[in-house]
């Protein structure tokens, strides 16, 4: 039986026990990728040779009886805005095409140290700016559930790689929902950790005060396994939290008896497809049946969170992307003077959507608009944090939709209001720095619907406990057009 389609934890256990080899696990996944990648295009780069070397190393360690990490022999993919030593890293932008980083991001290093095999880099919207994976310089990725549809984004390649069983695990990044929304669209699990829980060292920065790398997997136990490997302090990122947290994997069976859980009133409004709201209410009923006490919680600032988010993320991006100037790495368009060279390089290297966001950020930070935009956005952020703190004094976790709509068709141009509200349910967690995850909970119009669970900062354990109860009662997994031959599910 092929290993493609099997769970990461089962593969790691089998490799450790010597029941299968890392090389054979890798071969099955590469064969599956070879057969179906043309239909999905989840990857920007396949690192086949270094993956084979890593797998051989794991197999030697097994033969030597060496201690093996929790992801021993598990194929993984990393979103292509996470830098990898010796493997091209593009952020899906023409300005970085061909760049071979000289070092590993801390998350990449931790995953390799845990024994995982890095199979390839996953596609994304250019510089993670978007939510469809259509703006990639490498072309769009397709949704393995229905290949006429988008996988969501910006971690669309990661979500598609997991949903298609190309790699049982993937790491994405989430600045305003970029792990959770594609997880929802592709019917998988995706986590946005507490701000500072995972090192940002080696992430190609978009919004530094908002983003975290997050685990993506086919189910909760696999995702928890990867999450536990990624977390912890890092001397290379001074914003990481100083404590090493207790593994969430140990708490998946704790249940929710007696737990108070809140439904966010402001995230059940007209902006959300009623079929999706119905799934969230069904999730609340499932939790109540498992002994939780469900209540409605109001977070009024959620109504203005999108406006504050747009200002802050673009302001931070305009600063972060100033480094792409044709001097140290990436594209250079030659010109007579340095000023002309930088202008020509940036004009040729960035896509139009990226340029629009850079202009917005510059606008928000300019002297004329600083008080009305950037400063106000920072104050609204404080208000939102306060309201959430009040809510979490009463409830342990919050329940909401992940995305207001199911995955749209590739190439379809959404109505301006629908496009604006795309991140409505996900940005509050980034603004407040709290953990949030998306878990598949049935379908609407035959397409996957994710339900979002949020918790107070450092509240990953109650968040995973809540999600585990939901997973146990969730309808069976959505049929996928592309999936691994080795899975026990369709």
């Amino acid at each position, binding site marked *: 039986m092929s290993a493609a389609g099997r769970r990461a934890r089962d593969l790691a256990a089998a490799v450790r026990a010597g029941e299968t080899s890392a090389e054979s696990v890798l071969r099955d996944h590469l064969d599956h990728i070879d057969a179906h990648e043309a239909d999905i295009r989840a990857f920007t780069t396949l690192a086949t040779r270094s993956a084979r070397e890593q797998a051989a190393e794991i197999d030697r360690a097994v033969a030597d009886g060496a201690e093996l990490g929790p992801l021993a022999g598990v194929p993984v993919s990393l979103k292509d805005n996470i830098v990898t030593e010796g493997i091209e890293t593009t952020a899906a932008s023409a300005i970085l095409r061909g*760049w*071979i*980083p*000289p070092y590993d991001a801390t998350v990449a290093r931790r995953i390799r140290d845990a024994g995982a095999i890095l199979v390839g880099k996953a596609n994304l919207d250019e510089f993670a700016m978007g939510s469809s994976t259509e703006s990639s310089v490498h072309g769009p990725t397709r949704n393995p559930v229905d290949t006429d549809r988008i996988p969501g984004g910006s971690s669309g390649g990661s979500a598609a790689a997991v949903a298609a069983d190309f790699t049982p695990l993937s790491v994405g990044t989430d600045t305003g929902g970029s792990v959770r929304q594609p997880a929802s669209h592709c019917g998988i699990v995706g986590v946005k950790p507490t*701000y*500072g829980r995972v090192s940002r060292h080696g992430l190609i920065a978009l919004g530094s005060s908002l983003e975290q790398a997050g685990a993506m997997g086919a189910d909760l136990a696999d995702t928890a396994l990867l999450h536990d490997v990624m977390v912890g302090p890092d*001397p290379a990122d*001074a*914003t990481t*939290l100083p404590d090493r947290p207790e593994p969430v994997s140990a708490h998946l069976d704790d249940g929710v008896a007696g737990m108070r859980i809140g439904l966010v009133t402001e995230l059940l409004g007209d902006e959300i497809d009623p079929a999706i709201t119905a799934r969230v209410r069904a999730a609340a009923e499932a939790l109540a049946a498992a002994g939780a006490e469900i209540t409605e919680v109001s977070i009024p600032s959620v109504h*203005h969170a*999108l*406006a*504050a988010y*747009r*200002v802050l993320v673009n302001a931070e991006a*305009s600063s972060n992307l100033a480094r792409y*100037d*044709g*001097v*140290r*790495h990436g*594209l*250079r368009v030659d010109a*007579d*003077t*340095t*000023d*002309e*060279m*930088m*202008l*020509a390089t*940036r*004009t040729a290297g*960035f896509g*139009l959507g990226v*340029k*629009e966001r850079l*202009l*917005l950020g*510059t*606008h928000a930070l*300019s002297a004329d608009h600083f008080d*009305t*935009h950037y*400063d*106000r956005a*920072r*104050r*609204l*952020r*404080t*208000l939102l*944090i306060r309201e959430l703190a009040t809510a979490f004094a009463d409830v342990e976790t919050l329940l909401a939709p992940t995305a207001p709509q199911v995955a749209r068709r590739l190439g379809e141009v959404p109505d*301006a209001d629908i496009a*604006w509200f795309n991140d409505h349910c996900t940005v509050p967690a980034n603004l*407040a*720095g709290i953990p949030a995850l998306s878990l598949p909970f049935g379908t609407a119009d035959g397409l996957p619907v994710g339900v979002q669970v949020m918790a107070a*900062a450092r509240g990953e354990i109650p968040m995973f406990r809540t999600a585990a109860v939901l997973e146990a009662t969730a309808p069976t997994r959505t049929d996928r057009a592309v999936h691994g031959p080795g899975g026990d599910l369709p």
Partner: protein
Amino acid sequence: MAEHTSSDEVRKLADLMRLRFDDTELDRVVRTLDDVLGRLAVLADLDLDDVEPTIHLNDLQNVWRSDEIGPTLTNEEALAAAPAAEAGQFSVPTILGETP
């Protein structure tokens, strides 16, 4: 007609960001910015004067560490991806004499 920005303002911002747009792009960019700025106008109407701005999420104090040399890139590694390098340094075209 754009209400919240103008072609002139967009050209000025583009200049600051070291970006250039042709006329077709400029039209689109002005329309996009105008739409988003219209949606952001709500921020100006909120009563936030008594709310402190959030500067950073985690209550972090200055982080100190001992001044020890750890793993670092060699000069060659640091320059390996440079579009142009000379004498162990990043190399750029003329700077002096150009108009800003």
